[in-house]
């Protein structure tokens, strides 16, 4: 990760969030990618939509099953990773960088600070 990025945080739904200039970038964790297996399709969220934390906003389909992706915090979707439309397997190859899914303009940065740090997420996975 570049030094310009904030600390990466994680949700209990296995998403990662990093923030730069009030813009959050969101994807699924490497752990989530591993447990989903081969990802074949992603239904991306609509740019411009306003969402609340915990809203189901898009779906990742692996060969095994469909999994909902939730908004980690309140905000507005401002960009989606269109590369995933043609090749959703990018998430399997690099879930926490090139496999980012969407970006949002966040409305409440307190929600971000309540998410888990990388160490806390690792402990959460071990539970």
């Amino acid at each position, binding site marked *: 990760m570049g030094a310009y990025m904030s600390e990466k945080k994680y949700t209990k739904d296995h998403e990662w969030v990093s923030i730069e200039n009030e813009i959050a970038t969101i994807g699924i964790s490497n752990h989530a990618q591993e447990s989903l*297996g*081969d990802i*074949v*399709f992603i*239904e991306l969220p609509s740019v411009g939509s306003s969402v609340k934390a915990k809203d189901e906003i898009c779906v990742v*389909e692996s*060969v*095994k099953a*469909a999994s909902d992706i939730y908004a980690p915090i309140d905000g507005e979707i401002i960009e989606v990773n269109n590369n995933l439309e043609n090749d959703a397997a990018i998430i399997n190859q690099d879930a926490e960088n090139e496999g980012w899914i969407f970006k949002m303009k966040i409305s409440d940065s307190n929600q971000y600070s309540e998410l888990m740090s990388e160490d806390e997420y690792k402990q959460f996975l071990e539970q």
Partner: protein
Amino acid sequence: MPINYKTGIINEHKNVRNHSGIFDVSHMGQILIENNESYLHKLEKYIPLQLKKLIKNRSHYSFLLNKYGGVIDDLIISNIDIKDKSYLYIVYNASRKKEDEAIFISCAPNAEKIYEKNCLFAIQGPDSINVLKNIIDIPNNMNFFDILISKYDNNEIIVSRSGYTGEDGFELSIPNESAENLINLLLKNENTMLCGLGSRDSLRLEAGLSLYGHELNEKITPIEAGLSWALDKERLEDENLNGNEVLSDQLKNKLSNKKIGLICTSKSMLRDGMTLFDNNNNEIGKITSGCFSPNLNKSIAIGYIISEFNTDNPIFCEIRKKLELVKINNLPFVKKNYKKNGSIYE
């Protein structure tokens, strides 16, 4: 058996289609029933074959039927000799062990559940014969659904040329104590790999093969499931066969539902339980199995629709509250690649 091993479902799937893959299906039921006239007569109440006439060293796809002609289970039944004694060897679904064994034991009290001491492995794919032939003696003229007794490690093993992927391949029933040794020997061939339940499902779906609990259940007859080819038509006249009248009627009359293959025109995945609609939003059917097809790079499914629906009209599948256009595709999705010589069984 895990869903997949470390390289993932798609890789395992493609390895089976292009080379070979090994499935540990030891969870399945395997039973030996003495080839005795009284036992066979009792079993013929449930199994729509002439069991007394089964050819030695051949396997048959068949069913256990309830009194309405519904499928209690689908199974493979073979006539083999072990140590000079003649047996029916039956392989059946793990999920139906309780129901099936109640029937087997009621017909043949000394039936032997050999899955307690034998593992069952399937090696599937065009290279299976090359991986296997240096380790186990396979006659050149062995065809699809032939079965024989061979030797490994001084133990007798049951070898059949069969499987559940649409590819050529073999199933091996081998004593537990020799099983690990055999698997390790097979895996020394770098073109083969262990494969899990995920690729087993995507391979059988591409091959258009039915799965119990999805395309088959106690409320569906083999005819409704498009499997009438597996019924012995003479047995349908026999009152000793469960559901014989229902099945005879179904053969003569139009069915209310038919089994179809579907391909999704969008990238969304078709899944078990999704509902199918016509272009007036009338429900016309349901999907019973759906998955991503690695060979077609699209989502495929098997389902049932009402027979009166004109399949020239568009069909839609509801996926997460949206209607996606689906197209009918003849089964199988991927051509079967069996080694056979005049077999009556597909």
